[in-house]
């Protein structure tokens, strides 16, 4: 009986400890999901670029370069690349107006870069920010050709692919992305996704009233949702954005299947026809009897 008593006490002690530590872990521990929610408050945040408000001053581009220690902060680049993580494209509308379209990583919900990256360097981090891990990246450049928005660039200097990281370092310190902070006209907003979506819808309504019949919000359906939303006064194609961007490796299975079909057909039909020997062929009989050098043919 004494043994059972001790056993029971031990059991209660240890299960109490276990319960307490589990509870502590739930609140203070490293498990993603519950605890991480508190540490990635940008999970439900988004960015809204209002193309109609943008004046093309490129303050965003300069601020981005400075915040991320990128070279040549005052040099304009037509495209985003390894050393220019955001820029503004100047597009002509039908009435010869110039529209200013800010370009940066869209932080897609289903990103093509992460989809095709062979090392896992390009990946979606908690909170939805898509990064290219500079320690893991080997510079294969598959992401550069896979991105439907042509965002990442290859850096000769680092030997890796680089792109906008949604100012993740700043977010972790409780700051907002540098471009959003720098914009002098409020064309770049950072906030709750649902609030920004409502704002965007209202803005589109205003633009339609002003005569921009094709005004729309961009980034809701595309690639299961982009973390960077746009208010566009015109159709995306006019502004240099893909109308329905596709996940690069989305139909890879179909493409494999096409190749397998071609190879299978060729192997089974023509090759077989060409090399087929009837049973009674003297050449075959000779080989089967073990006579003749292997170089006979």
């Amino acid at each position, binding site marked *: 009986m004494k043994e059972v008593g001790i056993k029971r006490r031990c059991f209660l002690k240890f299960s109490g400890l276990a319960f307490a530590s589990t509870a502590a872990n739930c609140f203070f521990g490293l498990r993603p999901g519950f605890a991480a929610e508190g540490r990635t408050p940008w999970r439900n945040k988004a960015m809204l670029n209002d193309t109609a408000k943008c004046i093309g001053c490129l303050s965003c581009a300069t601020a981005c370069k400075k915040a991320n220690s990128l070279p040549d902060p005052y040099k304009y680049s037509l*495209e985003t*690349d390894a050393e220019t993580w955001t820029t503004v494209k100047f597009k002509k509308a039908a009435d010869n107006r110039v529209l200013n379209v800010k370009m940066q990583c869209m932080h897609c919900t289903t990103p*093509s870069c992460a*989809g*095709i*990256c*062979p*090392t*896992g360097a390009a990946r979606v981090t908690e909170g939805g920010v898509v990064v290219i891990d500079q*320690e*893991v*990246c*080997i*510079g*294969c*450049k*598959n992401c*550069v*050709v896979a991105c*439907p928005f*042509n965002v990442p*660039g*290859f*850096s000769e200097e*680092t*030997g*890796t*692919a680089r792109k906008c990281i949604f100012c993740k370092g700043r977010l972790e310190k409780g700051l907002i992305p540098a471009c959003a902070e720098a914009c002098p006209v409020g064309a770049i907003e950072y906030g709750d996704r649902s609030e920004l979506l409502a704002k965007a819808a209202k803005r589109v309504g205003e633009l339609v009233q002003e005569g921009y019949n094709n005004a729309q919000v961009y980034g809701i359906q595309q690639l299961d949702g982009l973390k960077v939303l746009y208010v566009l006064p015109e159709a995306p194609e006019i502004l240099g954005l893909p109308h329905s*961007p*596709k996940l*690069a*490796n989305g*139909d*890879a299975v*179909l*493409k*494999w299947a*096409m*190749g*397998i079909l*071609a*190879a*299978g057909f*060729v*192997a089974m039909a*023509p*090759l*077989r026809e*060409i*090399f*087929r*020997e009837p049973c009674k062929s003297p*050449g*075959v009989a000779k*080989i*089967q009897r073990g006579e003749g050098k*292997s*170089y*006979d*043919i």
Partner: protein
Amino acid sequence: MTFKVVWEFPVALYLFLGGMTSAAYYIGVLAELFSRGKYRNLARVSSYVVFVPIIIGLLMLLADLGRPSYFWHLMFQLEPSGHLVLQKGSVMSVGVWLLVVYIAVCGVVYPAFWLAEEKIGNRLPIIKSLKGKDSLRKKIGYIGLVPAFLVSIYTGVLLAATSGALWSSTPFLPILFVASAGSAGVAAIVLALALQKETKIEAFKKLVSTDLVFIYLEFLAVLVLLVTLFFAGEALEAIKRILIGNFAVLFWVGFFLVGIILPYLMDEYHLKHQRGEGKGLPVAAAILGLSGGLFLRYLVLMAGYIR
């Protein structure tokens, strides 16, 4: 206007060598299988053309990397703790492991069996123990068909799983690459055979017929690709530059004339008028075919960046 040009000649060469060696392998093995052993010499010769060219291809890939000394991240990483790497959605990741198996089986193990039968094989340590193991050799050969076919296909899928309109807006690029690999593979076997001192002419005849099959498929594939791309509407500028722009010479002369028309004419002449005798024409067609194949890969690669 082009997208960023990041994959250039080294990658084109790798794609070409991957296709050429893998097709040479499976043509050789299938030739022996379908002919019930009559053409086993083709299986031997074609297995020898795998290793060196594919290693050259791999070196091209390595040289193309931004951080070549970290190439092992494709297969093994240390953070957060040591683990093997396979990114299932990534064609390149699947391709890396595919290449490992392919080189091991089709480039090393299978040819080793044939090497064992050669005079030099008797003197090599592990290889000489493989002598005479014909049925095992054949089994390994059939197993090797799987990675060989997949490597032939994978070079096309690698480009197709991107956002380059020319490569990815239709699913048909892998078909073109299988066909192009096939004719390059035949050409490689023809050249390897021609280097032998004693060769029966019958093999050349069969290979020339095989070359014609792949040429037809290549021609068809290019046609289908151009038409479907045109109707898909996304690679119009690229098609324009290929047909009448800055890539026109590479396309019409490099690919079409050198890689399709001339080998086709030579092959037909060889079969019909030479009654399948003589080595000269098949060899000439092979050299042209290899060149044309390389031109095609380079052309498709470079034109993919146009928008």
